[in-house]
């Protein structure tokens, strides 16, 4: 086990150092940086699976000369599960990078990009393995900084620099809160070892626990992108190179989920008042709904996907929040179900979001634009990418037979079980959250109908799209791999659930594997089978059978099946791309319905011909969604900070005498103070 860990770390280190030592040979550089990453991530997959199935946590540690810091590693099922998730997504991203990094040749230094990529993967892996507070923080900070450097890969672009700065500031603020959280634990235990956090000498006082809860929520929530701390995410994730976006959205924000579970269920021992779970649940519901709503209004494909990360983090938190509420009331089985649903969605989201980002990267690679309005007709030109993107879209829209469907169904079920809670208020709130989740799901479906339809179907709307070519083989392989994993996770809950059960069991104290799997594992059930159950494999078979049946009926009763290829009938007019639905037009109804949330501003300019004012020469239509959080939350805070800084600048007059006077006055005050 620990040998595997050495291989994993060694691979990443090799991936960092090798390309930096090579002469300028793009091909060699790419291979030397991706091959070690592939080895390491594959090792990580094995390590994760081993850790999930081993009976005891595996530990190892190296002492350091720095007090309070030991490089301690502990692989318990929770950590192993996240290592598995990170490594799976990392494996796909590494394979993808073989082809995709060529895109950057000449713009950026490939060795540096490769080294950062490896370092980023390594730091994420260490974050979930660390068993010491300071070690964790070092890894966490490395992860943040390396991802910042990756975000600003294309730093020539002012927007990218802005995104990077925004991200850096937010993530540092988050880290400050995380440090405070750990200091609270440290104060009580006197050590930064996670074991001391886990089993303190005496329990933390109630108010300290509450502070720790809030600090952790803010600190890790910033990284996870919960509303209203999500504002950096739609800037930063699209700005990064696509295979990095895939990792950031797919797994980096999940390290925050890992940390939250670690802190709430492990360090705080799963003992908390009901309102903690309630807060997490509400944040989850709001994040899910707002995330998908803003995603609908995005026409930058990667921006759209970034907002969907906010949505899916919300769904994960819904599961975890429900679990926390059940935990408070001692309903252990349900708590386990909620947590399990959240974790299931974590790995699912990692897979399909990585897949979609890689798909978006392929589109970018082929068309050099991220604007959906300039796509169109790409399915015929890029069938592989299109097929994989479709699978990802179906997964994220939570349609059977894919993985998103299974985990969202589980989240729904855990919310519906709220009638077991004695508290009337919560009995009402959880179904409301379920209703919000339902709306989220519907909107996500609409969003991906838009994303896929506008991008891949109909006629190309730009010369870029017209000349798009299918991407290189490694990129296709990576996408196909993830698509396969998506389908497999959807059809194979009987394999996934027992593993997840091992993760959840230590925190809730019950194993629900037997209760969740009905029909010898061929069906999923809620904790009591009578309430609801579902069998993804059978469902998939039924879907297949239905489509075959439909085609059969057509064949039987449809008369002669002569194929004739012809252009789409356009009432005698030749169809042009200008007649197509645009992305903006597609979401117009939704914009109307939710205009109170979007606060859209619409600009319509029309130029008429000189001869007659009945014939328009040109029309320009612009609309913007009001960035509510930035305007009403961030801008005031920013203005306040700037104003305070302006006040402080007065004392920085640059006058030698003034500075001497500061020192002098301080001296006198201190002397008088000491008397």
């Amino acid at each position, binding site marked *: 086990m620990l040998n595997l860990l050495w291989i994993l770390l060694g691979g990443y280190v090799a991936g960092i150092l090798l390309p930096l030592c090579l002469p300028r040979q793009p091909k060699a550089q790419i291979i030397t940086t991706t091959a070690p990453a592939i080895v390491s991530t594959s090792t990580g997959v094995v390590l994760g699976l081993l850790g999930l199935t081993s009976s005891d946590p595996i530990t190892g540690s190296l002492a350091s000369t720095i007090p309070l810091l030991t490089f301690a590693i502990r692989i318990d099922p929770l950590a192993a599960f996240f290592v598995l998730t990170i490594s799976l997504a990392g494996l796909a991203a590494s394979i993808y990078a073989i082809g995709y990094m060529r895109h950057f040749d000449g713009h950026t230094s490939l060795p540096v990009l490769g080294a950062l990529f490896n370092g980023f993967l390594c730091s994420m892996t260490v974050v979930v393995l660390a068993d010491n507070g300071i070690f964790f923080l070092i890894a966490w900070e490395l992860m943040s900084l390396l991802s910042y450097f990756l975000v600003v890969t294309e730093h020539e672009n002012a927007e990218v620099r802005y995104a990077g700065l925004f991200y850096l500031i937010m993530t540092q603020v988050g880290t400050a809160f995380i440090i405070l959280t750990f200091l609270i634990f440290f104060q009580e235990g006197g050590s930064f070892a996670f074991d001391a956090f886990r089993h303190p000498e005496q329990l933390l006082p109630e108010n300290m626990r509450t502070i720790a809860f809030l600090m952790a929520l803010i600190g890790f929530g910033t990284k996870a992108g919960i509303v209203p701390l999500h504002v950096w995410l739609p800037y930063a994730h699209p700005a990064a190179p696509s295979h990095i976006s895939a990792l950031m959205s797919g797994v980096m924000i999940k390290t925050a989920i890992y940390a939250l579970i670690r802190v709430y269920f492990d360090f705080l021992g799963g003992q908390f008042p009901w309102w903690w779970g309630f807060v997490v649940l509400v944040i989850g519901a709001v994040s899910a709904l707002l995330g998908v709503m803003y995603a609908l209004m995005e026409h930058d494909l990667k921006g759209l996907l970034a907002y969907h990360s906010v949505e899916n983090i919300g769904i994960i938190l819904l599961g975890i929040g429900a679990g926390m509420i059940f935990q408070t009331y001692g309903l252990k089985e349900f708590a386990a179900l909620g947590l399990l649903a959240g974790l299931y969605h974590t790995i699912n989201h990692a897979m399909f979001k990585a897949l979609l980002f890689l798909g978006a990267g392929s589109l970018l690679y082929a068309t050099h634009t991220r604007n959906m309005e300039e796509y169109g007709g790409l399915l015929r030109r890029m069938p592989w990418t299109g097929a994989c993107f479709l699978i990802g879209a179906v997964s994220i829209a939570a349609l059977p037979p894919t993985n998103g469907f299974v985990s969202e169904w589980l989240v729904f079920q855990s919310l519906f079980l709220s009638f077991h809670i004695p508290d009337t208020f919560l009995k009402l709130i959880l179904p409301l959250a379920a209703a919000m989740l339902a709306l989220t799901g519907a909107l996500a479906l609409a969003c991906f109908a838009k994303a896929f339809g506008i991008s891949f179907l109909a006629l190309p709307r730009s010369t870029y799209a017209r000349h798009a070519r299918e991407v290189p083989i490694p990129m296709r392989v990576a996408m196909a791999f993830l698509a396969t994993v998506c389908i497999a996770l959807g059809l194979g809950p009987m394999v996934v659930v027992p593993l997840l059960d091992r993760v959840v069991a230590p925190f809730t104290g019950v194993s629900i594997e037997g209760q969740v799997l009905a029909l010898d594992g061929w069906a999923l059930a809620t904790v009591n089978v009578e309430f609801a159950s579902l069998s993804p494999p059978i469902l998939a078979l039924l879907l297949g059978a239905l489509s075959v049946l439909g085609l059969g009926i057509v064949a039987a009763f449809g008369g002669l099946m002569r194929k004739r290829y012809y252009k789409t009938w356009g009432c005698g007019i030749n169809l042009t791309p200008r007649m197509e639905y645009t992305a903006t037009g597609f979401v117009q109804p939704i914009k109307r319905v939710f205009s109170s949330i979007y606060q859209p501003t619409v600009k319509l300019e029309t130029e008429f011909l000189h001869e007659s004012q009945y014939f328009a020469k040109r029309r320009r239509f612009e609309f913007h969604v009001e960035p509510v959080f930035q305007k009403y939350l961030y801008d005031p805070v920013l203005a306040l900070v700037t104003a305070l800084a302006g006040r402080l600048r007065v004392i920085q*007059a*640059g006058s030698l005498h003034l500075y*001497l006077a500061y020192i002098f006055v301080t001296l006198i005050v201190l002397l008088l103070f000491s*008397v």
Partner: protein
Amino acid sequence: MTPPIGSQLVDLGSALLLLTCFGIVAQRRLSACVDLFALQSIFLALTATLVALLTGIHHIYIAAALTIVIKAIVIPRILKKVIERLNVSRELVMNINVPASLLICGVLVMVAFLITQPIIPFGHLLTRDSLAIALAIVLIGFFTMIARQKAVTQMIAFLVMENGLFLGATAATYGMPLIVELGVFFDVLVAALIAGIYTNRLQDAFDSVDTAHLSELKE
């Protein structure tokens, strides 16, 4: 009971030092400031010699001799040269005018006595009362650095502070170990040289030795 005569003499020397401090604060002419500083250094050397006589610690003689050579002869010469070269005969620019400065210095002396009040009874050296005066001199030197604009005056003020420190060391522990004192003298000399160069540079850059111009370097 009155303290022994030696102790009173040391107090007298310290008081003279303090007096010259006030002189420096009140003086508008630069060259007079330098002369006053030289005078102060001589008083300091005398006081140190007196302490050496009374205690029989020999290395204080060396320190006193060095004080005479470096602080009463060498450094004043450097300063005079700077003043001649720069043509600044009068200290016209003051952040705080003379009467106010003197009042503040009076307050500082009181503060110094107030601060050392709890410490002094614990001392059992014959120089113990000088500690308050030494602290007062340090504070006044510091204050002069703030209150005067020209670089030359600031340098003098810095040297006054150093004198105060030396007196304080002598008063508190009969002087620092010789090696330390030698080091300090060397430091002060170097500081004076550097300050001389710095004033020249200031002159070249801003056609004046008014350190207020340094604020233009901000941004």
